[in-house]
């Protein structure tokens, strides 16, 4: 049976792993290659490296950091941040990524999704969606959560799937870094709207939050950063708890 995935996310700024709260107040959490290897040893099913200031700083993804992180990592490795066009994606694959995550650039030009998928396969394309709840909908934000687009997150997820993305990485901006639980309403709405895997992100604080997002939220995978970096939750221990709660996970790893 297919298991639910636990994904460790490394937010990177200037080549260092950092973690903020609601996309702000960044704290240093270490070297990306070391963090990735340590998470994989502890049982992370995948590693995501997001160059969170590449888009806002108007520069390309730090390929050196991608290369050194990929070197000794033998679990799936996704890289996002600063991928604006096809050539940027190709360079990131060349540096050792298995998948790329695109956010702002895909919103600006959805055909970028199909272009990258046509060359590297749908399985290699993850569309990252940052969404914040408004009175009437979940609104899509771009540029690391800085710019509102007016777009509805569920509609955008559907469109991205139609363009050929292989997975959706869905972040609740309201919950990001708060450790107050995933937004199961948002996750479930998107998971039921598309037929591709949905990775829930934003708000992980305890094993209970993961159980909830896999059962109530219908997520295929859940991603977290801060709880793993600062040792609040050990991935191996988390997977044991999920296993005991009847959630199918890769356990023992």
């Amino acid at each position, binding site marked *: *049976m*297919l*298991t*639910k*995935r636990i994904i460790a996310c490394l937010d990177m700024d200037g080549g260092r792993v950092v973690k903020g709260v609601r996309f702000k107040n960044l704290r240093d959490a270490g070297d990306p290659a070391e963090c990735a290897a340590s998470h*994989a040893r502890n049982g992370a*099913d995948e590693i995501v490296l997001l160059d969170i200031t590449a888009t806002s700083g108007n520069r390309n993804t730090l390929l050196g950091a991608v290369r050194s992180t*990929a*070197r*000794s990592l*033998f*679990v*799936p490795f996704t890289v996002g941040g600063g991928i604006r066009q096809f050539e940027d994606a190709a360079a990131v*694959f*060349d540096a*050792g990524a*298995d998948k790329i995550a695109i956010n702002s650039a895909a919103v600006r030009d959805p055909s970028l999704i199909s272009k990258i998928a*046509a060359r*590297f*396969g*749908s*399985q*290699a394309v993850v569309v990252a969606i940052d969404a914040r709840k408004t009175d009437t909908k979940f609104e899509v934000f771009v540029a690391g959560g800085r710019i509102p687009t007016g777009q509805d997150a569920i509609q955008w997820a559907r469109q991205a799937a139609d363009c050929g993305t*292989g*997975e959706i990485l869905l972040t609740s901006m309201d919950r990001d870094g708060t450790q107050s639980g995933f937004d199961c309403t948002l996750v479930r709405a998107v998971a039921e709207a598309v*037929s*591709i*895997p949905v990775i829930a992100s934003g708000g992980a604080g305890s094993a209970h939050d993961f159980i909830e997002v896999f059962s109530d939220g219908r997520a*295929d*995978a859940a991603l977290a950063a801060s709880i793993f970096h600062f040792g609040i939750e050990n991935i191996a221990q988390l997977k044991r708890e999920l296993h005991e709660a009847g959630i199918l996970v*890769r356990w023992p*790893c």
Partner: protein
Amino acid sequence: MIAIVDYGAGNLRSVKKAFDHLGAQAVVTDQPEILATADKIVLPGVGHFSSLSALETNGMREALLQAASGGKPFLGICLGMQWLFEGSEECTEISGAGIFPGKCRQFPASVKSPHVGWNSLTIQKSSRLLRDIAQDSFVYYTHSFHAPLLAPTSASTEYGLLFSAAVEQENIFGVQFHPEKSGDVGLSILKNFCEVVC
């Protein structure tokens, strides 16, 4: 020397990196002459079945068929394993090698496609490639089409139905999952391939 066939498939580097890590001498090549001198062949792959059309253009298809029929240990990974069959519903214009009978098909509508993530192996019979791999070990998958179960199936996986996770017949080996992305289990499988003598 292990030749990793380059036909533009996305995950070449991951496969090369895994062999490097194991201390095996591996080269990435798109030259039929190099295949002729290699001891073992790896046909990697991920993505669309149509990308295999690149093999048709430079004599690579013939070189691969020759290596396979000549008894060289040959490992197809993901799309590379699907190529060992007659073809795929994904792209009917491209023929596979036809070493194994049957076509690769889509998953039933009852499950999400692509099949992405870690799933368990049910080992069906003794296998050189899966030597010392524990029953129910987890491996990483990412694919939308699957190969049928048949006599050479050495391991199966369940996702909406049972499909061939690994096939093995004489010098020909195939895995639908990605050993290069399956942690220690995957590295052990690649190590077994390095040690296979046919």
